[in-house]
């Protein structure tokens, strides 16, 4: 039953009751009296219908408007306006409740959307990390397989060298030494690669010790002094004062830093500059930024930068493992490594470390 119907029924019943009373009361009034009574009844009827209609509308109209607004909110329009006040307390109360609910819903939707975006980001990151981790596992497996035949080559070439040392004169004797050295040198290069790959994949406890980031940067610059000087590149340090001591694996972290700075030195032409800045990003995170004004990295390469064996150096120079391993180490240390680059302007690598070490275990294996 609608409000209108209720009002009409109510009115009709009231009118019928009144009419009955009227009939009884006017019984005996005679013809004129009855006509007058009928007339009054007619007026009352008309007025009553009008009143019922008006009263019903005062309730049903705002309710319908409220219903419209609710529909719009249900469709996702959180800007749907509430119906204007009517002066009726109950309607006003209902409208206020609607407004509160609408606004709460809006806030919830915004939070949800943010959370979903966040989740998508994290998921992408996870996929990337998983990819790198499984690449790491494959790389380690391959490295292991290769080490065995490598050991055979090593021993046999070594044995030939042993024999050569005590052999007498024979034709082409002078060629043997260098040739065998060529073989053992190549074995050493392979070994460096496999050991590096295995070093990355192994699940080794991180040795946590306090580290002064500025000291680390100074040490790394000293370590690369010869490379720097040979290339003719400048390294400028901008250490922040009052940095909190970070607790992490010093050797592993410095290995990453060395890798990044060495890459910069290699990429720069003579006269180039590298600026290494340390700073506290916030209470929990410290940053080291290695910025160079070199050729920069094109977008296509930037995407693949941390892939194993990805390198833009010429054959034989560099394994393409540096950034892959560095990325893995930073993750293991609870931090991360970021890169930005503009072609013809330069490249920034940012290493982030948590102030307090969070134990990270490489998953799987």
């Amino acid at each position: 039953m609608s409000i209108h119907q209720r009002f009409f029924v109510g009115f009709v019943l009231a009118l019928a009751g009144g009419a009955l009373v009227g009939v009884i009361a006017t019984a005996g009034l005679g013809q004129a009296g009855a006509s007058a009574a009928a007339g009054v009844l007619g007026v009352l009827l008309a007025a009553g219908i009008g009143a019922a209609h008006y009263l019903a509308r005062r309730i049903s109209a705002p309710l319908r408007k409220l219903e419209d607004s609710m529909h719009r909110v249900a469709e996702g329009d959180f800007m749907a306006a509430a119906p204007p006040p009517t002066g009726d307390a109950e309607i006003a109360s209902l409208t206020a409740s609607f407004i509160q609910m609408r606004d709460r819903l809006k806030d919830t939707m915004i939070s949800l959307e943010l959370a979903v975006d966040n989740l998508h980001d994290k998921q992408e990151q996870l996929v990337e990390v998983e990819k790198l981790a499984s690449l790491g596992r494959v790389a380690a497996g391959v490295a292991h397989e290769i080490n065995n035949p490598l050991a055979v080559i090593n021993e046999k070439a070594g044995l030939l060298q042993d024999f050569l040392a005590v052999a007498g004169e024979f034709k082409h004797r002078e060629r043997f030494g260098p040739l065998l050295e060529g073989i053992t040198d190549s074995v050493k290069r392979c070994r460096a690669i496999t050991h590096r790959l295995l070093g990355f994949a192994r699940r080794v406890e991180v040795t946590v010790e306090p580290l002064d980031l500025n000291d680390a940067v100074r040490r790394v610059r000293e370590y690369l002094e010869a490379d720097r000087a040979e290339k003719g590149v400048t390294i400028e340090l901008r250490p922040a004062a009052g940095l909190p001591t970070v607790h992490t694996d010093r050797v592993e972290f410095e290995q990453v830093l060395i890798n990044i700075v060495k890459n910069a030195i290699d990429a720069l032409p003579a006269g180039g500059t590298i600026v290494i800045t340390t700073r506290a990003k916030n209470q929990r995170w410290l940053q080291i930024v290695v910025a160079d004004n070199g050729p920069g990295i094109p977008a296509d390469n930037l995407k693949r930068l941390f892939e194993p064996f990805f390198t833009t150096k010429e054959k034989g120079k560099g394994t393409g493992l540096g950034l892959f391993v560095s990325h893995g180490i930073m993750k293991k240390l609870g931090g991360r490594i970021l890169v930005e680059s503009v072609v013809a302007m330069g490249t920034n690598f940012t290493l982030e470390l948590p102030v307090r070490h969070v134990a990270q275990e490489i998953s799987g294996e």
Partner: protein
Amino acid sequence: MNKAHVLIVDDEREFATTLTERLRLRGYEARAAFTAEAAIAAVAASSPDVVLLDLNLPGVRGVELLMNLRQQLPHGEIILLSGHLDLADKIEGVRIDAFGLLLKPVEMSELTEKIDAAQAKRGMHAPR
């Protein structure tokens, strides 16, 4: 100090035999065993001072072989050689009281240093 008597246990025959020859050239007594059974037999027959053991011997778990070797060679030194090195290997190394753990391919000088050091340690415990 006499040069150690070395037993090389590795299923990579080419590796084991060549290494054996190279060690002999350097004055060590050396022999090779390619299986766990052969290793156990060799230990029983000749009591080596130092055993170079590849943990990844197929068939038997390197650890079981090791326990067996330990029993027969209470004073022998065991050096683990492996194609890969992960935490599990390191734990095994400690558990079986291995003298060291080397990753293949290994430099001859590094290896002989390790063997000599192991031999020296033996000399301090139990004279032959």
